[in-house]
C-alpha cells in the first residue's frame, strides 16, 4: 500500500502547520517539493513544456499538475500530443523547453530518480511472449533497489492485486489483450511507485477488460497514488477523473474537474463541454472518434 502524502510537502504538512505556510511562500525547489494546492500535494508538475518536430507542434507549451490521491486525465483527440507529453514527463523524450517535476525531482536533471517514483503503462503495450508474467515482474523489479525478499513480496502483491493468479506462471504467448494489459500494468507497479502514468489504458480492450482496468485505476487512487492518464474517451474521463486537462493541437485549452468544465461551458455532458473548450466542431470530433 502506498501511504498518502509520500512527498515532503504532505509529510511535513501533517507534522506542522507553520511548515505549510513557509512552503507556500518559498519558490519551487527541485529535489524538495513540488507545490501545494488547496491542501493537496502536487506530485507531478508540468510547466511550459514544448516539443516541435520541424513544423509540427506536437506539444506547444503546456502546463498542468497532477495531485496525490487523485486521477488526472489528459483528454484530447488523436494526435493532440498526449503521448508525446507523457513521454516527456517520464523522461523518454527531451523537451525543447519547459520543466517537469515529479516528487520534487526535475526530469531533465535527474531522470533516473524520476523513474524510481513513477510507473508507466506505455502506449506500445507489449509483453515478452516467452516469459511468464511472474518472470516479467521479477525482471522489471530487479531494476529497482529491492531486496530479494522485498521483490518476492512485491511480485506476489501485484499478482494478487491484478487478479493474475491463473496466468502468473503461463508464458505470455497467446494472452488476450486484457491479460497482456494486466502484465503491463503489473510491471509498472512492481516497485510500488507513488505515481502511475497510463497512456490510453483501455484502448482496444473488450468491455470486461475495460471495466477491470477502470476499477484498477480507481483502486490506485484509493491507495493514495497520483494517477495521470490519457484518453480520448469522454465518458471514461468523466467517470474516472478528479481533474481533466484538455489538450488539442499540442495546447492545453482547459483544466478543471468534469463538473467545473461543464459548468464553465454551460453544457450537460463532458463531450459537449469538450467540443466547446477544444474549439472543435462536432465533425472534427466525430472524425477523431472514427480514427480511434
Amino acid at each position: 500500500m502506498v501511504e498518502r502524502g509520500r512527498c515532503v510537502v504532505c509529510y511535513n504538512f501533517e507534522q506542522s502547520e507553520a511548515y505549510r505556510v513557509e512552503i507556500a511562500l518559498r519558490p519551487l525547489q527541485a529535489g524538495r517539493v513540488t507545490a501545494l494546492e488547496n491542501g493537496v500535494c502536487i506530485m507531478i508538475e508540468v510547466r511550459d513544456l514544448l516539443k516541435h518536430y520541424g513544423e509540427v507542434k506536437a506539444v506547444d507549451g503546456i502546463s498542468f499538475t497532477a495531485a496525490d490521491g487523485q486521477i488526472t486525465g489528459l483528454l484530447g483527440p488523436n494526435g493532440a500530443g498526449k503521448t508525446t507529453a507523457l513521454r516527456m514527463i517520464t523522461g523518454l523524450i527531451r523537451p525543447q523547453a519547459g520543466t517537469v517535476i515529479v516528487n520534487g525531482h526535475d526530469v531533465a536533471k535527474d531522470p533516473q530518480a524520476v523513474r524510481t517514483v513513477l510507473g508507466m503503462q506505455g502506449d506500445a503495450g507489449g509483453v515478452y511472449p516467452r516469459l511468464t508474467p511472474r518472470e516479467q515482474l521479477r525482471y522489471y523489479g530487479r531494476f529497482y533497489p529491492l531486496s530479494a525478499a522485498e521483490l518476492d513480496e512485491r511480485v506476489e502483491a501485484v499478482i494478487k492485486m491484478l487478479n493474475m493468479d491463473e496466468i502468473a506462471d503461463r508464458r505470455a504467448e497467446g494472452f488476450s489483450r486484457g491479460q497482456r494489459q494486466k502484465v503491463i500494468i503489473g510491471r509498472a507497479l512492481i516497485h510500488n511507485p507513488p505515481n502511475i502514468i497510463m497512456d490510453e489504458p483501455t484502448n482496444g480492450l473488450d468491455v470486461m477488460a475495460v471495466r477491470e482496468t477502470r476499477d484498477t485505476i480507481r483502486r490506485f487512487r484509493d491507495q493514495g497514488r497520483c494517477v495521470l492518464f490519457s484518453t480520448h474517451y469522454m465518458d471514461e474521463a468523466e467517470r474516472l477523473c478528479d481533474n481533466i486537462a484538455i489538450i488539442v493541437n499540442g495546447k492545453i485549452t482547459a483544466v478543471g474537474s468534469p463538473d467545473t468544465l461543464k459548468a464553465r461551458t454551460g453544457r450537460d455532458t463532458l463531450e459537449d463541454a469538450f467540443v466547446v473548450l477544444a474549439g472543435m466542431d462536432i465533425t472534427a470530433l466525430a472524425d477523431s472518434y472514427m480514427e480511434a
Partner: protein
Amino acid sequence: MWKRMSNIWRKELIDSLRDRKALRMSLMMPVLMGIAFAIMSAVFSGIGSRSEDGFELQTVATIGHQYISADLAAIFDQLVIEIDPYTGTIDELEAAVKAGDIELGLVMPEQFEADILADRPTTPIMINNVGTSMSDMQNFNSRLSWAFDQYNDQLVAQRLSDRGIDPAMLTPITVETRNTAFESEDDIASSMGSMMTSFYFPMILAIAIGAGGLMTAIDVTAGEKERGTLESLLLTPAADSEIFMGKALAVVTMTLIPTTLTVLAYVITSDYIAPMIWEDFVSMSITFDKVLLTLLLCLPFIFIVGLMQMLLALRTKTAKDAQTVMGFANLVVMFPMMGGAFMRPDSPLLHLIPGFGTASIIGKMISGDSYASLIPVSLISLIVVGAIAVLIGRRMFNRERLLY
C-alpha cells in the same frame, strides 16, 4: 550497474533459449555443421581412404599385361596395384574408362622389356578419367605414376652402375626436410588433413560467428521494438549504456555458445567418433589447447560481430527488416574470414583486418605454421575496432532515437 546489466543479460538469454527458431540456429546448426565439415575435410584430403597397409587395393585394366617385367610387377605388388588383363582394343578401353566402367587403364607396349634391355625409351599409356571421382582417382593415378617413377629410378641406377658410375653422382644435393609441426612420422601422414582443416576450420567458425547470435541480436533490438516492450524497458531506472551492454553481452554469449559447439562437434567427430566408425579414418588431432586458443582468438571478433548485428538491427523497425539487412551484413563477417583462411599471409599488416587476422592465425595454428607474433597485432586491431563499435553503439542507443 553490473546488477542491471546482468539482469538484462540473464533475461535475454532465457528468452533466446526459449525461442525455438533461435535455438535451431544457435545449437543444432553448428553441431551438424561441425560434424559435416570434419568428415568432408577428411574425405577431400583422401586420408580416409587409406587401408591398414597404407593403400586400398586398386585394379588397373591392362592391355599387354604379359609385357610387364618382373621388377615392375614387384613394385605394383608393393603399392597394392592389381593388374587385370583387358582383352579389348585401346579404343574400347578408353570408352570404358570414360563411361566409368573401369577406373584406370594401362596399355603396355609389346617391346617394353626388349626396349628396356636395349636401353631404348619405351612408352606405356595410362588411361584415366580424373573428372569423375576426384579424390580417389587422383590418389590412384599418382600411385600408378609413382610405381613407374620408382621403376624408372631403379633402371637409371642399374644402368649407371653397369657403366661404373655411382648413381648418387646425379643428385649432388639432397635436402632433408624436418617439419617441426609434427611430433612423429605418423603425424606427417595426416598433413593433408591438417591442410584441409586449416582452411575448413576458420570457415565453419565464420559461419557459426555470423549466424550464431543473429536471431538474438535481432530479437533484443528490432524484435523488442516490434513487440512494444522497448518503451517499458526504457522507463526503468536502467541507464541507456546498461541496457545496451546487457543486450550486447547476451548476443555475445549466444554467439559464443554455437561457436564453441561447432568447434567441439568438429574436433569430437574428427578425433573420436569418425575413427571409431571408420577404422582407416585418420584424425586431425586438434588438441584441447588449440581448441581453447581458437575460442579465445574468436572472442573479440565475436564481440564486434555481435555489436555490428545489434546496431544494424537497431536501425530497422521490424524483425523481418532486420533479417533482410543481416543477409548482406554477414558478408562483412564471411569475406574477411574466408580471405584469412585462404591466404594466411605472413604480413602483420593484413592481420589488422578484423576477421581476416583471426581466420589466418587459426589456419596457421592448425597447419603448424608460426603464428604467435601475429596474435598481438590482430588483438590490438580487434580491441580498437571493438571500442569504436561500443562508442557508436552507446551513441545510437539513445532513448529518443529508439522510439522513433
